[in-house]
């Protein structure tokens, strides 16, 4: 059983479901960029279980606005706390009213949200501190024997004056 809700009606619906004995089992974000229809782009998918009825149901909540937002349900089901942080971290979905919406899996200073479909896989710059390959700033330290003048080019490579490119 799958139903779809808009963010405005979701919190009231969640409270009603909680009162009926439904428990939150899973909450995942979904980037619909390459699915049809691609609007809204982000959807929060919630899996509920009811032990008395022995039933499950799936609820989709459309994330609206910029940044894409849905109300947080961590006050209804406290277990949503970690799950919403994960969806925020990996997909950048904003959960309004979440007590502590910070990154949970990625480093705090990370830029971007890796599970988004337009996140450049393999295009992440490698973290390193650029250093010149050879320091030649004092006279007499020239690597070439005849003492020809040298300088570093824009890549940090040693260039000897007079060498044809």
């Amino acid at each position, binding site marked *: 059983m799958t139903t779809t809700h808009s963010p405005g009606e979701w919190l009231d619906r969640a409270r009603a479901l909680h009162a009926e004995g439904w428990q939150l*089992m899973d909450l995942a974000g979904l980037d619909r960029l390459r699915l049809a229809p691609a609007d809204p782009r982000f959807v929060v998918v919630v899996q509920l279980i009811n032990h008395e009825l022995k039933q499950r149901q799936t609820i989709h909540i459309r994330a609206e606005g910029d940044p894409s937002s849905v109300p947080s349900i961590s006050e209804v089901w406290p277990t949503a706390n970690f799950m919403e942080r994960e969806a925020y971290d990996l997909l950048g979905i904003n959960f309004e009213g979440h*007590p*502590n919406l910070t990154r949970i899996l990625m480093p705090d200073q990370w830029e971007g949200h890796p599970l988004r479909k337009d996140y450049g896989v393999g295009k992440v710059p490698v973290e390193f501190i650029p250093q010149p390959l050879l320091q030649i700033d004092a006279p007499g330290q020239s690597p070439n024997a005849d003492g020809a003048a040298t300088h570093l080019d824009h890549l940090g490579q040693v260039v000897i004056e007079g060498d044809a490119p």
Partner: protein
Amino acid sequence: MSTTEKLIHEVEARGEGAFVESFDPQEGRMVINMGPVHPSTHGVLRLLLELDGEIVNECLPVIGYLHTGMEKECEDNNWRGAVTIVTRMDYLAPLFNEQAYSMAVEQLLGIEVPPRALYIRTLLAEMNRLSSHLVWWGTQGLDMGAMSAMFYGFRERELILDFYEMVTGLRMNHGYIIPGGVWEDLPPGWERAVRNITDQMPRRIKDYEALLTENPIFLERTKGIGVITREEARALGATGPIARAVGIDWDLRRDMPYEAYDDVSFDVPIATEGDVYARYRVRVAEMRESVKIIEQLMDKMPSGDFKNMDPKLTHPPRAEMAHSMEAVIHHFKLSTQGYQVPAGEAYVAVESPRGELGAYIVSDGGTSPYRCHVRDPSFVNLQSLSHMVRGGLLADLVASIASTDPIMGGVDR
């Protein structure tokens, strides 16, 4: 919302920042960091602790040290290949990851799985429950100072790992359960290997009980320690032995049966105290039930195919490729591109040794998963750790961590 839930919400609302700000040397409160490299944190679990002397005022798990983006990696593999990624999540219970994922893909494909495959999967899953609980039993004992527990637990686990090696070729990260069935049939002589385990285990479990269950030091360290109430466990979404140790009578194998669990009879052990010792008793009893299930499955093992033999889904037998051009074409297509799965979404959950392990799969009709999210029980259960240890001694925190049985590979994925 009940008062307990309100309290939980208030504590969660203080967050990590608020936690560190509460450092106050005048009142003797101290904030210390436990982990991520610590022998008793079972991997790279880091805990921020606010201590008042030896009393734990607050405990906040900081996770992500083992995050390797497995859900993203699944999106780059074909449907068959993603099995080898999900199996690495909860590395002590790899077959449950494969099982949940494969069941979700099968639901989207709408295919039948032959009964023999269902039985093999269930048999291996119960073996996996045993081997996972044996590691837990060993580490729970070790963390309480009983060094020998580790040796005994790992001795019996070795038997089961040998059985895995015989069946799947690997001791962990098997990639054995695939959408449509299992990769290979059980090898000749498997009954003897299983019988060897089921004959030994009841005796061994008796030994374990003699070592720890009645051990006065162990009782002292676990009874009344790390208590969580029924309301807390429910609100925090705890599943598996943690939930069953507070009297939540729920087991997916019995209440929403899947695969071959309909055909076997077993009990679901329950305790009500909610302390470390209750979780201990539930898990040890579960090991006994697993042995019972394995014996029944072995006796009832049906014959027939071990996977769905649709040539569009499964590799053709080697011999067929020598004389059939079609088989070569299918083999080439499956090896290079993989099969397509109809667009849609599925959520399937299985009862792993740590609780509900769910796989949420979305397909766009292509040859690789569009989204593959795994609801890992360790990740969710870790939230209840803070509530177990609040107000207890620092030394008892170690007992609570061991009884939560978190697997960081599953937590961080």
